[in-house]
């Protein structure tokens, strides 16, 4: 199993203010799969993503990637792990305002010994024409494409997407989802995508539904459809 999550628990606060956000999560994802974490606000999906991404720690249980448990890693090792294996995409694009599109993507390329070919990626992202523009000269969709480009250029094993379409309109959202799908197919990265948009589950290989910190459904999507065909 490429990604294995075992009995993961996480709570915030102390004593009477303690809130259990994850109450024992178990699931696994095969390499190259798209896994959608679905659930309403407060269900713990972003926390789960952050623990998988090594930027948050579980109280109990573990996350194992290729047999290596993230909880056993010291901070330095964890940073190296993120550097080599993970790509992150957030709802807000978090681009560096005074770097151009190309340079923002180079920020990701710098982290890899064998980054993808930049111009080719720019073309894949549909940003080649805009490569010299600054983020504030781009639309929301273009900014998110740039953020995806930054995450994907280092060809990470896992692409973690936290509500990547949360700030976008329907059309642009679909474009971004198509792009993620395209990248998954082209580069074979495992994609873990957090969303509260129920329709997106249809493009996933695996769907994990969360509510109140627990898995309500965890299944392999036998009726996977192309992102372009998604409707909501």
């Amino acid at each position, binding site marked *: 199993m490429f990604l294995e999550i075992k009995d993961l628990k996480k709570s915030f606060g102390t004593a009477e203010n303690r809130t259990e956000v994850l109450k024992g999560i178990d699931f696994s994802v095969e390499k190259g799969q798209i896994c959608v974490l679905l659930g309403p606000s407060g269900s713990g999906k972003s926390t789960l993503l952050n623990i998988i991404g090594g930027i948050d720690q579980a109280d109990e249980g573990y996350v194992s990637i290729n047999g290596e448990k993230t909880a056993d890693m010291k901070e330095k090792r964890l940073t*190296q792990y993120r550097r080599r294996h993970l790509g992150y995409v957030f709802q*807000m694009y978090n681009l560096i305002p005074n770097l151009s599109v190309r340079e923002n993507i180079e920020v990701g390329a710098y982290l890899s010994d064998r980054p993808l070919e930049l111009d080719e990626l720019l073309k894949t992202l549909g940003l080649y024409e805009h490569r010299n523009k600054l983020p504030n000269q781009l639309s929301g969709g273009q900014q998110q494409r740039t953020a995806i480009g930054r995450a994907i250029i*280092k060809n990470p094993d896992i692409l973690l997407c936290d509500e990547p379409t949360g700030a976008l309109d329907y059309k642009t959202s679909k474009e971004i989802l198509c792009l993620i799908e395209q990248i998954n197919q082209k580069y074979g990265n495992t994609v873990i995508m957090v969303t509260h948009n129920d329709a997106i589950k249809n493009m996933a290989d695996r769907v994990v539904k969360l509510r109140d910190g627990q898995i309500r459904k965890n299944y392999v999507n036998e009726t996977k459809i192309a992102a372009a065909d998604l409707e909501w």
Partner: protein
Amino acid sequence: MKNPLLKRLPRELIGDIGKYLAVFLFMTATIGFVSGFLVADDSMLAAYQESFEKYHIEDGNFTLEKKATDSQIKRLEKEGVQIYENYYVEEDADTDLDGKKDSTVRVYKNRSQIDLVSLMKGELPKKEDEIAIDRMYAENNKIQISDIIKVGKEEKTVTGYVALSDYSALFSNNSDMMFDAVKFGVAIVTDEAFDNLEETHLKYRYSWTYDDPPQGEKAEKERSDDFLEILADYTSVTGYIPRYANQAIHFTGDDMGSDRSMMVVLLYILIAIMAFVFAVTTNNTIVKEAAVIGTLRASGYTRKELLVHYMTLPLLVTVIAAVIGNVLGYTIFKNICAGMYYGSYSLPTYETRWNMDAFVLTTIVPFVIMLLVNLVLISKRLKLTPLKFLRRDLSTSKKQKAVKLPDIRFFDRFRLRIILQNKSSYITLFVGIVFANILLLFGMMMAPLLDHYQEQTVDNMIADYQYILNVPDEIDEDDTYTLYGALSRFLTPSLETENKKAEKFCMESLETVPGKRDSESVTVYGTQQGSHYMKADFPDEGVYISDGYAEKYNIKTGDTIWLKETYGDKTYSFAVKGIYVYPSGLSVFMSMPQFCCVFEKSDTYFNGYFSNEKITDIEEAYIASTITQDDLTKISRQLDVSMGNMFQLINIFAVVLFALLIYLLTKLIIEKNEHSISMVKILGYENDEIVRLYLVSTSWVVAVSVLLSLWIATWTIKVIYVYMMAEFSGWLSLYIEPAIYWKMFLMGMAVYALVALLQFFRISKIPMETALKNIE
């Protein structure tokens, strides 16, 4: 692959050019000035130190009542010294030929063996009516080469400017608190011209050098003490100054050294303040870019990579400022600083020396300070987890609740929130204002302090003239009724005067007993009961001391003071019965009977006159010196001449620092609140209302900081002043003119008003789109 974040740096620099340029210019000027100062100081100090050998400077000098005989000289030279005649004549000088004395000139023959002369400009005198004068004295009295000046009764043409190696600081009297390059000068004339000068003013000064010079000041002191004992056995010594104690030789070197450490400390404090400014503004950038930092950290960027990124620009600016500062230091500032030394001291010419020490102090150390301050403050901020950055939760404390504020007006509460939000900026601002105001207070207080000292000195002068007489030895008691005694009495000149205003007094010079401080000269007066000139009758037992003496040594009524003979080992103790207002120097006052008893003089003994009129009926030969207003006020005059420009420079520097800090930190506060300002604009607030919200809080902080800083600056100056004055002999009472505080406060607020106006325009320009664009 090069780190792509590097590409941000030039854009960051251009994007915030105001901040970087202001700090860069300030640091360049500061480093340049200090570098120039250190280079000039080091080069001139080296020239000064080399001058001891180059100009064969004496190991000491003594003055005798009469010319020493050859046999006396030979016997003294058996003590391992070489003795050189170094006679001088002290004459009144009239430099503008208006018929009035305007200064005193000590005239020497041109020297060929000891204390050689450095010709700075023009030529040495060749004819009898020619004279070469000290460069400093010439400059201060605006005497040009080829001018004619009157020295004594003779007119002489100035042929050149010289520096006498034993007069790098123009002290006319070694016990003076300060040299006087305005009213006192030295000069050389030809041997023939010297021989024709008034013999009555001739001083039999001899200089000596050791055959085997003692090493170190302690050995030098022991050797010179031994030599004095031998000397006193042979002849009547009226003056004895070993080189280590000769202010005219040493003051310059000591002063150069002390200024150096002060300058370096000043540089480091200023660099530290600038480092804090950078760290605070960088931390603000980190807050603004929290989400980006979180993303980068989540993507695998290490903390170190980001730390290096955020520290690069401050360090780069420091390095460039240090390099350009040093270039300016070696070119422009060096000359300015050398000019300041040349404006105070009679130094020989110097060659610029490469100064590794100055390079390290003005390049490496500022870089290290900038590195450490930023490293500590920025790395503390970057220690947060990527998740905290992503959530924009950058508080390092666990305290989550907002500080509870009193139930006051909304506007006031809002302002208090802004103050709490910007604590670190305001603390930096406060520290900067305190430091700027310490500098400003120092710069502004000195001129009024000197004026006040001068006024106090003049107001509390004992008399317009204090005549100190050359009193012949008293006739031994055994000879009172012998022929020798009668003959001696007959031959002893009369020291009496017909002048009815004149009043006799006794005077003796003692020294403080060396302890933590070196010994310094104290004048002991014995005055008449019911004196017309003294404002108090001094008791027959116990003494009064001058207020300056009391302040410097922290002596109170009831304490006992210990003093020792200047040229002997005998010590005296006196019970202090009161403090007498006499700012001119360190003095002890007692009644004449007590004086005669303490110093074992006859009841009729006196050696001076107080008089408000010039005494004309005592032969000049019997007047050792006359102390007038000019003599008593020389310190304030000289400090004004030497340091006046420096005080102005300090003032400008302080105001620039003050303005810079206020500008940078208010700018930061506005930038930090750009989003909120834009939001309240959307809500319908007018610009002036927004200004009242965001600038009034800063105005409060500035006003309170300025007020508090005045108090802190006063206490700091009080402490620094005591240390500073401890290096001088004598004492200038600390006086801070009350009006200075108003001036400083108004000046501070005026500078703030200008900056606030700039910030008002900045606030007006913040568009409403800022809030709309950044809804995250």
